[in-house]
């Protein structure tokens, strides 16, 4: 009885928290709308400032350990006929986000693009509407997920984690994420769900769907008391948000396993410290996340089969050498080795030594190593 009561209290607290968040978002949107309404009513051209997302205004914050936007602001004014169209688009998006949030409905980037047509709002293509969505994030400093706008799902999660839904119709309903061997896709309902409890002691983020399936088959979740997440290449923001929550709310360390190339290294870096593209947002990084492989040095150490790096691979290496985050530690060291080798290896390269070689041999060594990183 007491546990039930406790849980009920918890549930109430959680739903209160979710309501609170929704209320804040709606309030903020309303205040933006009211300002523009008043301007129009007073015969003034409405305008607002928006943090500049130009390259020159993206700076690395050492304390936050991520890229942030500098202090430059751009003025978006409806008086300027060149900005009128994007101004209107943004107004519509705020209006649409307001409805989504208000009615607790979810949408995707693509869905937003198509919905615009119903309101006679023109977008040239989806990338234009995606860009306006980033504008809304920049103006409000809130990720689009807060406005119930999600990317098309592609990453997934598996492991002993109990969650409780907060989306309408599922409130209070719980789920254990090890019930379905294909894993659960990380969509709006999962992103907004409350994380209840877990027996896991670590989160393993892995770059590839194939390896994710192998890990589930090999019961890595049980063997190493872990939650396995397939990032599907560069981790989507909802996945990064989830990783951050697992780390902060559940106190789980996060390790990242990628292909042995410069792109893999950067996938790990984005999980750790975010991307320049999302410099306008915080709360998307897991600064304590650890990249455990495949390192360039592993290629030599484990004698992995390799393929030569392409021109663009090499160029990417040089580009990243200029990035402030790659100036020390393993980040710098591995990048240098990649450049020296000019060769790369896939995660699947371990198959050369047996299909389970990666889970039997490599992973345990890396997990052990991670403790000391």
């Amino acid at each position, binding site marked *: 009885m007491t546990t039930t009561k406790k849980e009920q209290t918890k549930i109430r607290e959680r739903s209160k928290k979710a309501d609170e968040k929704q209320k804040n978002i709606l309030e903020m949107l*309303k205040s933006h*709308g*009211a300002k523009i*309404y*008043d301007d*129009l009513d007073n*015969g003034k051209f409405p305008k607002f400032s928006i943090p500049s997302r130009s390259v020159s205004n993206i700076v690395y914050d050492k304390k936050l350990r991520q890229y942030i936007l500098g202090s430059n602001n751009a003025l978006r004014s*409806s008086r300027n006929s060149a900005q009128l169209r994007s*101004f209107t688009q943004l107004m519509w998006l705020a209006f649409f986000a307001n*409805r989504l949030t208000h009615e607790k409905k979810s949408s995707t980037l693509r869905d937003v693009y198509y919905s615009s047509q119903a309101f006679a709002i023109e977008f040239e293509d989806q990338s234009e509407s995606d860009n306006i969505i980033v504008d809304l994030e920049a103006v409000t400093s809130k990720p689009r997920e807060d406005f119930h706008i999600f990317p098309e799902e592609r990453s997934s999660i598996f492991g002993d984690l109990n969650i409780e839904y907060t989306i309408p119709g599922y409130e209070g309903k719980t789920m254990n994420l090890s019930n379905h061997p294909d894993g659960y896709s990380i969509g709006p309902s999962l992103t907004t769900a409350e994380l209840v409890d877990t027996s896991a002691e670590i989160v393993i983020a892995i770059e590839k769907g194939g390896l994710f399936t192998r890990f589930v088959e090999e019961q890595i979740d049980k063997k190493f008391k872990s939650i396995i997440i397939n990032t599907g290449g560069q981790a989507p923001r909802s996945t990064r948000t989830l990783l951050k929550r697992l780390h902060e709310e559940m106190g789980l360390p996060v390790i990242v396993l990628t292909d042995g190339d410069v792109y893999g290294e950067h996938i790990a870096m984005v999980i750790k410290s975010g991307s320049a593209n999302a410099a306008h947002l915080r709360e998307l990084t897991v600064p304590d996340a650890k990249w455990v492989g495949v390192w360039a040095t592993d290629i030599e150490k484990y004698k992995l089969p390799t393929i030569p790096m392409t021109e663009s691979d090499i160029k990417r290496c040089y580009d990243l050498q200029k990035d402030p985050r790659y100036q020390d530690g393993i980040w710098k060291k591995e990048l240098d080795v990649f450049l020296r080798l000019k060769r790369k290896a896939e995660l699947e390269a371990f198959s050369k030594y047996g299909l389970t070689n990666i889970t039997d041999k490599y992973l345990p060594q890396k997990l052990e190593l991670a403790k000391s990183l």
Partner: protein
Amino acid sequence: MSSIKEKFNQISPSEFFYSNRDLAGFSNPTRSLYTAVREFVENALDACDQKGILPDVHLTIKAVEPEKSDPKPYILTVKDNGPGIDAEHIPLAFGTVLYGSKFGLKQARGMFGLGATMAILYGQITTNKPVVVKSSSDGAIQNQFEILLDIQKNKPVIVKHTTKEVSKKGLSVSICLEGDYSKAGNKIRDYVYETSLITPYASITFDDPKGQKFSHPRFVKEIPPPPTIIRPHPHGIDVERIRRMIVESQFEIPTIDDAMIEKVRKDLGLSKKSLSFTAIMDKAKKKWKTLSRQVRVVIALMSFLKMDFEKLNKIKIEDLDIDNKKLFYWDFGDSQSKSVEMDPESQYYKQLTNTVQGEPLTTFLTKRFQRIGPTTAIKFAEFAKFKPEKRMGTLTNQELVQLSDSLQKFDDFMAPDSSCLAPLGEEPLEKGIKKFFNPDFTAVVQRPPSAYSGFPFIIEMGIAYGGDIKSGGPHVYRYANRIPLLYDEGSDVVLKVVNDTDWGRYKVKGEPPFIIVSHICSTRIPYKTAGKENVADRQEIERELRLGLQFLSRKLAAYMSKRGQADMAKKRANLYAKYLPQIAEFCTELAGKKKEPNYKKLLEENAIESKKIEEEKEIDNN
């Protein structure tokens, strides 16, 4: 020298033109009708221009038998309010084909009526009808002539001559010629229309064979200043021209006409009296010192001819053959060429030989060319390796060529005098363009005088955009010495310059509604063909055209960008009208309000602003 003169007279100019009429634009009934119209209208306008009269020109073309199919005979009549021609000159002016004896230079549409005579000749060849000339030079009596041409002799045959009382000066010329109006009509109407654009001070009417009337009243009340007659520039001269000038300078006596005889009589104090040959000679001896050179030459001639005034009146001097000491003349009485011996011992012989041997080189240069002073003349003689006092009449053929070459090569002559040019002027040109095309934008320019090969020229240009102008431009209206050029535009220098222009650079795109008017004024337009329809691409002319067009194009570009701004302002206004209501709609729900904000004020404000830009554009335009 004498041999040259003989060559001139061997073939009658009428005969020459008769066999070469294609050259003058009389190749077929269509072209001939058009050319005839041009020649008479241009003569009428030239005549008025020269006397500073605002021209009223009436052109009528009537089919002799309207129901017949083309080509068929037409009666072409051109009537003007010009000075008319004195009765005694009419048969000569309309009944002979003159060859160029005028060395004075000035800008005129035609060369001394040559084309008009060609038209008369063509009419006579095709219909065997005489030209009908009605002229009043005093505004009281009108002389009416019907004249045929004796082609072989190049002499007029007067068919009929009557007079009547009138109240106005003016000339009317009427010819009957074979033509094809159904084919030439378009060009003739275009010609009349375009002529009225470049002659805004003229009223031109046209009654066509189908009974249609085209009227182009004058819309400029002031006639541009007439050109002055000037002497030729040494760079603009060739061997043939020098020959003729020498002939003129040494042999100034062939026209012993009524007026000349009258003058001699008067100078001798014999106006009323009729004296015998010897009595006249005695009188002349006594008065010799007071006589002018011209009169002296006539007396000298009379001394060898042994004729009194009455006899002198019936002959025409043909040649003075110094080598053989013979004087040739044409006797009108029995219509044959005769000659008399000249006695070299006679005191009059030297008078004639001096005349024939002509002036010294320096005198020839300073007297017969423009802008050559004695110093330059002597400098030139040195340059050309001639003695300054060299008599022009004694030049050999080789020396003539040497002189001609040196005249071309000598660089120290002054630039050609442009006072002989009569451009229309920027203001009348602009007025004309505005009236004809009612455009949104007009710009005109008159370039400073320039010269090619010793001939001065001035370029005038205009450009207009929008308004009543049809799209698909630039449409080019070409003029030369106030004549519209309608044929053969493909090979014309103006077209070349226009086509070379990258209009995109001047913000003119697509198939724009715009026109270009170009007017080349010169004492000699370098036509490519004798038909006077396209101008050759002389480098100097091309350059001036280019500069003129560039100047205008820049103005057009400025206008176009302003026009673009106005269009932009309109577009902007439309943008606000489209987007502001949407912004209002969305922010109303976002702000949780029921009623939409009053954004109408903003739209109105915006409309006012774009209207302001539109008005600024208007003001600039005016």
